[in-house]
């Protein structure tokens, strides 16, 4: 026990246009759960990828159990006893659970029955439930996460890195997950727990390291002797005050209504199950729930990207149930999709092409499109919504997350919509970006726009929304007044408990 399990010393990692790590350091003792805290963009994941052999650090040393290592591939890190569970799971959908677990560390000759047996034993040892013969594509997100952890345990990882593991769990499942973590460190393993949720860190972890702007601002502080608010301050630095949700106006008439909506997913399973809801002018309605409970299908169906099996949607009294997306937009429905770069924007194209995506039909002259008009139009959006763009003719991909979201929101708001459906509008942004987007949404509410907002961040919903609907397995299972509801109440509803 003389050496730390992991020592990262002065790690630098640069990407074109970005410095992700600027001399970050981390020391993790064996037998502990160590939190790596930091805002989005603080360089947590990059630092861990350097430890897991995914990236090569430009400078700095990696020591595992006191031995200096230079990994050029994940295989090297695995050989040195490091296992990482990425945020996007690295699983082969068509493989069985057992095949996924042994992949890369399989016996030379693979017998399905033998590996299934061994994987079942391993799962049992750590108190997991897992059917080794099931193909992964049939599993829920939580089950897939367990497969990922089993993968690392199968290789007898002594250091286990978990990148925001609780994002796919309900608050209660997360508590249970904490117990599993404790069991894993009992026999001397070290667990590195990447998070930006302070409450989890204080309940599961022994020590914490805080990153900001790619640097270590607090190293290995013991959770037991630190003040949580102090950690929070270290994480975000100078914090802009949260916008005050105090309202100027009262909610008006129903602006959007959804009736008996049922949507099937690509595999024919029910994603949205008989949902009805109404949003009034000048009101923010929040949808809470663990990721993957049908939120995406719900908002996509409202925006016309997904055709529902049954149900009716109307915007400002107009039935748009069968209308294509552009007709719904014309009827006053703006949509900020969850997947900004995959759905809301085309990152390979420049600003103007993205900015006129909603309005180009009005800028056309016969079959031709006036690019001068299009450029002027996009410059207006850029100016009014303070989007920081370098050159207008470069692909969007060069913009930061916050600016991308401003451009997207600006495009949606510039025509003065009556209803905004915003899915995870602040996810992945830094604090300044989060505040700016929140302020924009509150401004819209005060201007009499109806807002339907999906978020996984319960605190955000509690502070912005008027009403909160909880979604579990495609159903709305509870409705809460955001001004009087508590986290625990809503958390219980998110688990599917009767409210």
């Amino acid at each position, binding site marked *: 026990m003389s050496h730390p399990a992991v020592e990262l010393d002065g790690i630098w990692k640069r*990407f074109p246009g970005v410095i992700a790590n600027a001399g970050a350091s981390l020391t993790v003792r064996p037998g502990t759960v160590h939190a790596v805290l930091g805002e989005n963009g603080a360089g947590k994941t990059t630092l861990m990828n350097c430890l897991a052999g*995914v*990236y*090569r650090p430009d400078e700095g040393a990696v020591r595992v159990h006191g031995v200096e290592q230079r990994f050029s*591939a*994940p*295989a090297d890190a*695995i*050989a040195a006893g490091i296992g*990482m569970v*990425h945020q996007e799971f*690295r*699983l*082969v*959908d*068509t*493989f069985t659970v057992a*095949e996924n677990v*042994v*992949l*890369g*560390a*399989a*016996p*030379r*000759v*693979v*017998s399905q029955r033998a590996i299934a047996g061994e994987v079942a034993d391993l799962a049992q040892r750590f108190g997991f439930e897992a059917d080794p013969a099931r*193909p992964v*594509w049939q599993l829920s997100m939580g089950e897939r996460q367990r497969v990922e952890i089993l*993968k690392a345990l199968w290789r007898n990882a002594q250091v286990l890195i978990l990148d925001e593991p609780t994002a796919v769990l309900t608050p209660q499942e997360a508590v249970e997950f904490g117990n599993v973590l404790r069991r894993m460190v009992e026999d001397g393993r070290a667990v590195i727990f990447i998070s930006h949720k302070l409450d989890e860190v204080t309940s599961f972890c022994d020590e914490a390291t805080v990153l900001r702007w790619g640097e270590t601002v607090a190293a290995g502080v013991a959770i037991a002797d630190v003040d949580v608010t102090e950690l929070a301050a270290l994480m975000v630095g100078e914090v802009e005050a949260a916008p005050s949700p105090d309202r100027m106006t009262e909610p008006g008439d129903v602006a959007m209504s959804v009736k008996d909506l049922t949507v099937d997913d*690509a*595999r*024919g399973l029910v994603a949205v199950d008989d949902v009805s809801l109404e949003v009034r002018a000048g009101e923010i309605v929040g949808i809470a729930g663990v990721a993957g409970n049908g939120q995406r299908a719900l908002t996509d169906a409202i925006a016309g990207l997904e055709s529902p099996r049954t149900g009716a949607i109307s915007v400002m009294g107009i039935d748009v149930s069968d209308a294509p997306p552009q007709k719904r937009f014309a009827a006053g429905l703006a949509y900020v999709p969850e997947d900004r770069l995959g759905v809301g924007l085309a990152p390979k194209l420049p600003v103007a092409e993205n900015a006129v995506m909603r309005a180009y039909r009005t800028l056309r002259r016969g079959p031709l499109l006036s690019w001068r008009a299009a450029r002027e139009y996009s410059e207006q959006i850029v100016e009014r919504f303070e989007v920081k763009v370098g050159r207008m003719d470069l692909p969007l991909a060069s913009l930061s997350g916050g600016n991308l979201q401003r451009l997207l929101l600006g495009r949606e708001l510039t025509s003065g919509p009556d209803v905004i459906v915003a899915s995870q509008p602040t996810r992945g942004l830094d604090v300044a970006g989060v505040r700016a987007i929140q302020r924009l949404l509150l401004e819209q509410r005060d201007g009499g726009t109806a807002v339907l907002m999906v978020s996984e961040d319960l605190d955000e919903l509690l502070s912005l929304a008027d009403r909160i609907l909880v979604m579990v397995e495609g159903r709305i299972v509870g409705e809460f007044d955001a001004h009087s509801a508590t986290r625990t109440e809503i958390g219980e509803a998110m688990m599917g408990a009767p409210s």
Partner: protein
Amino acid sequence: MILADITISEAAAIGLVIATIQFATLLYLAALGETIAERAGVLNLGVEGMMAVGAVTGYIAGAVSGSPWIGLLVGALGGALLASIHAFVAVGLGADQVVSGLALTILGLGLADYIGADYTGDSRRAWFADVDIPVLTDIPWVGETIFAATPVTYLAALLGVSTWFVLNRTAIGLGIRAAGESASTADAAGHSVARIRAGAVVVGGAFAGMSGAYLTNTLVGTSWSQGVTAGRGWIAVALVIFGAWRPGRVALGALLFGFTLALQLRLSGFGIDFSPILMSMAPFLMTIIVLIFISYRARNKPSPAPAAIGIPYRREER
């Protein structure tokens, strides 16, 4: 009505079965190689070119040495060497697999014609004799057909079983399939995607080259002529899809496609009034139909097509 006056002698029927097995062997070798490459996530549309290079190098080596085995070996090397260009460009440099593969076909056909120009009409030859298996070859009918093939047929069958075993029952096979389904997963699990994919492409090229060498050392009267592959490489590409990327089903498909090739040469002999040329379209049309069927079914469950096929993989992307 088409089948009104069919008269098939026993000799003709035996001939048909033998030819079916020969064509099936030819197609299977090439398709098996392509199956390996595609299961690893690399589409190689250079099969026709690799086959042509295998055909010409295999012919020359066989004719010069007098040994068809040397021909087969050199053909495999020729195919593998050409395939290594695809491995370098499409896997190593991450270029588009479609473009690189088609360029490989153009290069291979060009090289084969260029190398073979001096050997067109050459009278030297080496050919595989039929294997005489005691007892089995003496069985009436079966012995004269199935157990009278050249050693290459048995080799192809052996390679088919081995490929199945490697893909489904070994750690390497797990890595190959993972590279074809999700390269980043295979990488994260510690497999070198580049090495797996490049290896699969080169082995696939060796199989296609062997197929070409078999063509010129047995099938077409043991000689080289320009255009000898005659689009059979494309049939092999079709066969991989027809067999849903599985060595066993590809073998069944090879027998079926081989049968259509063998039959189309014999239609008039059998008194069947159907155009052999129309019949030669069958493998391609059947493949389109199978592909449509696969896509239709893929709405409810994962498609048998390797999910990562055609997508270059490079790790440090951000």
